[in-house]
């Protein structure tokens, strides 16, 4: 319990526990001249899922993987099922997912991702604006009434709306979290015509909440916002009553676009597949060049120079060769999180990265105007995505053909390698596995927050959050700087996924 004191010139603060992030998190910051000079991010919990899976029957991955994380459970299932489906052995048949299977899994995945986005906004991110540090701001009273943790008026509307959305899970996936309906060949749960109609009703109910409470405007209008100027006009005009506009007003007053700035490459693995390609594309976006390039997946490797693991000979390991062997003997190490790098370079993932890669004009404009990714843009990207994804869900639901199959139940190949890449709410998620004799011989996972909250690599280059925190203001006497709180939560970290 050292370093609890207020910030003084040249001091170090140890921040934690960080609540309203998923799982446990510690951040050490060095402060001088009223700003963060450097940061080190520690993921303090190790469970060891990758080792737990080795030696188990292949299909056990579908029981274990979702239990890595209770908030991105479906994403973990999707990645595991896709990795199993990707295993090809000569002479063995391979499950070919029918169109209904992809639609049903997209719907289940979308419910989780949308629920995560609104949970983050209402329960994790906004309550920081109710803090006493803002008591003198003219917007504080309204923000505290609406968003204060536990007692704010927003949760009484948001929680029932979220539960109503989750009712779709009851029909489509049996339950949430930790469903087994997501299989390599599709979904175990066919949808009847009556259920299709009922699901439409449930989704309509949720759309009502979004249009009445969150946006105060039709989703189509939100999805079509194409520039910062259009967003400002929306917040002052048609959307002014909504919680989204409420956030934008606070963000403007607090300069949230100047917090947590990064100038990194943004990556996305591609989200919500269909025969016409994913809803949100795969790629890497270079904000400096303003252009998307193909994603060189084969250049992803994990560095463990500053993590509590034994390293492989020859430096960073590709996930196909990676190991997870705890070793707390290194003095340089400070986290259970490995440091994934793309071609040796740091990369950011998340809803903002996904929309930058997909080419959403508003998000690209926000990042161009803000001089990089920033806390405000990360929050806006999630809410824009809520509108985009709910509109897509309506299309997928309409495209389901209740008379056609939902799964190909061909047996899995029993040896070979597979990779399962997807986009969780928080960004790019990958599972890499190898099967031998029907059992798991190798399993490695890189989760979204593993990218964003990675420690330094062998070259000493800090991870995305560590970079984003540099320059964050620390007010005199602050023991838990509010700017740091905003920046950390702008990434919507999931610490249980991070280390897995």
């Amino acid at each position, binding site marked *: *319990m050292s370093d609890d004191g207020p910030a003084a010139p040249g001091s170090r603060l140890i921040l934690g526990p960080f*609540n309203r992030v998923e799982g446990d998190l510690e951040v050490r910051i060095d402060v001088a001249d009223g700003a963060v000079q450097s940061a080190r991010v520690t993921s303090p919990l*190790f469970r060891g899922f990758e*080792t737990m899976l080795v030696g188990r029957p292949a299909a056990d991955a579908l029981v274990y993987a979702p239990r890595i994380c209770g908030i991105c459970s479906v994403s973990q299932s999707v990645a595991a099922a896709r990795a199993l489906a990707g295993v090809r052995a000569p002479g063995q048949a391979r499950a070919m997912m029918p169109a209904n299977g992809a639609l049903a899994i997209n719907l289940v995945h979308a419910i989780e991702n949308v629920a995560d986005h609104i949970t983050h906004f209402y329960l994790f991110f906004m309550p920081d604006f109710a803090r006493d540090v803002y008591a003198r701001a003219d917007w504080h009273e309204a923000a505290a009434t609406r968003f204060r943790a536990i007692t704010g008026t927003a949760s009484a509307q948001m929680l029932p709306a979220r539960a109503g959305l989750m009712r779709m899970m009851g029909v489509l996936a049996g*339950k949430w979290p930790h469903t087994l309906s997501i299989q390599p060949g599709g979904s175990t749960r066919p949808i009847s015509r009556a259920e299709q109609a009922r699901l439409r009703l449930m989704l309509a109910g949720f759309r009502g909440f979004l249009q009445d409470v969150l946006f105060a405007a039709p989703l189509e209008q939100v999805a079509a916002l194409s520039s910062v100027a259009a967003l400002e006009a929306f917040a002052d005009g048609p959307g002014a009553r909504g919680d989204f506009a409420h956030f934008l007003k606070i963000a403007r007053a607090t300069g949230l676009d100047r917090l947590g700035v990064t100038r990194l490459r943004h990556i996305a693995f591609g989200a919500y597949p269909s025969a016409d390609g994913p809803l949100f594309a795969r790629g890497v976006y270079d904000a400096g060049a303003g252009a998307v390039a193909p994603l060189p997946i084969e250049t992803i490797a994990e560095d463990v120079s500053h993590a509590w693991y034994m390293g492989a000979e020859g430096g960073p390991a590709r996930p196909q060769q990676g190991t997870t062997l705890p070793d707390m003997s290194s003095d340089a190490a400070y986290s259970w999180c490995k440091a994934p790098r793309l071609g040796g370079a740091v990369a950011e993932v998340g809803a903002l990265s996904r929309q930058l890669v997909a080419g959403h004009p508003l998000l690209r404009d926000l990042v161009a105007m803000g001089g990089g990714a920033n806390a405000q843009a990360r929050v806006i990207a999630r809410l824009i995505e809520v509108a985009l994804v709910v509109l897509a869900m309506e299309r997928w639901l309409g495209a389901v053909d209740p008379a056609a199959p939902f*799964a190909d139940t061909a047996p899995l190949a029993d040896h070979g390698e597979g990779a399962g890449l997807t986009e969780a709410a928080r960004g790019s998620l990958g599972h890499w596995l190898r099967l031998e004799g029907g059992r798991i011989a190798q399993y490695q996972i890189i989760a979204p927050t593993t990218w964003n909250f990675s420690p330094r690599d062998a070259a000493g280059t800090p991870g995305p959050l560590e970079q984003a925190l540099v320059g964050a203001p620390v007010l005199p006497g602050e023991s838990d700087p509010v700017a740091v709180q905003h920046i950390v939560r702008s990434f919507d970290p999931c610490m249980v996924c991070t280390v897995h």
Partner: protein
Amino acid sequence: MSVPGTTPGTTPLRLLWLQSGGCGGCTLSLLGAEGPDILTTLRAANVEVLWHPSLSEASGVEARAILTAAAEGRERVDILCLEGAVVHGPGGSGRFHLMAGTGTPMRDMIAAIASHARHVVAVGSCAAFGGITAGGGNPSEAGGLAYDGTAPGGLLGTDFRGAAGLPVINIAGCPIHPGWFVDTLLQIAAGTLTRADLDEWERPLAYTAQLVHHGCARNEFYEFKASAETLGDMGCMMEHLGCKGTQARADCNIRAWNGSGSCLDGNYPCINCTAPGFEEPGHGFDVTPKISGIPIGLPTDMPKAWFVALASLSKAATPRRLKENAARPTPVILPRDKRKTP
């Protein structure tokens, strides 16, 4: 918002929630509570949240001050909830989970607060028994609060009693159903939860007096041993697909999940996630181990010879409708009233 209380006129009960070796899924499940939502329920039950990692405003120094005061007995804790397993590794040191901001094993914080708490509640199978976190060779040396799997032990042991006199209350499940927690909380708040309300693993009988089999929509297939062959089929999943619903203790098919669902309704088997050791079934989760073609895990309380005799009899009597439908994802023959001529 003002909410009429279920226990009016009493001092609020203070709830402190900690997380360790788990996935956070029990909290996320709880956020799905309906009629009313969980925050309204807490207010109605007159329960004040001292700290919850996903819900509270307090962070960092403020949070550490609350937890330290609770650990030293200076801050009253009426209900301590632990979500996630207790992590003892590596080598018994507890360093696989040092609580953020403290450099102290979370295990020690849990034990210290539990020693002063009126009630200690394990939320989910990880906190109760170790659960999935203790699976696959248990690399993090995880265990429960009063058990390590089926063995008495854990961090506090089966002899532990909270200040109110009860052992650790194990709301086992992976994840919990929100209703299981709410029922338990309401009983604690009303002062009506006694040892007689807990089963042999100290799980609340509110949900473990039932079997998952009770209310299963496949019961007719079970009666006639008309079995599913692959995941997604309509038939009974006991014979081939590893379903443990006839042994598993929970009301999943009586108390719907997410409005209308259950694992069985999702067309995948019950994996008995409320039981200690469910994470290591000794066979694939969706495979039924058999000896001479007879499933080894038979329904609770059922003599094997009788089961075999009844099964062969009922198989012989299976209506064509069930036989044809069992191994298909959607029915090909529907029930039909014979009085109606075509």
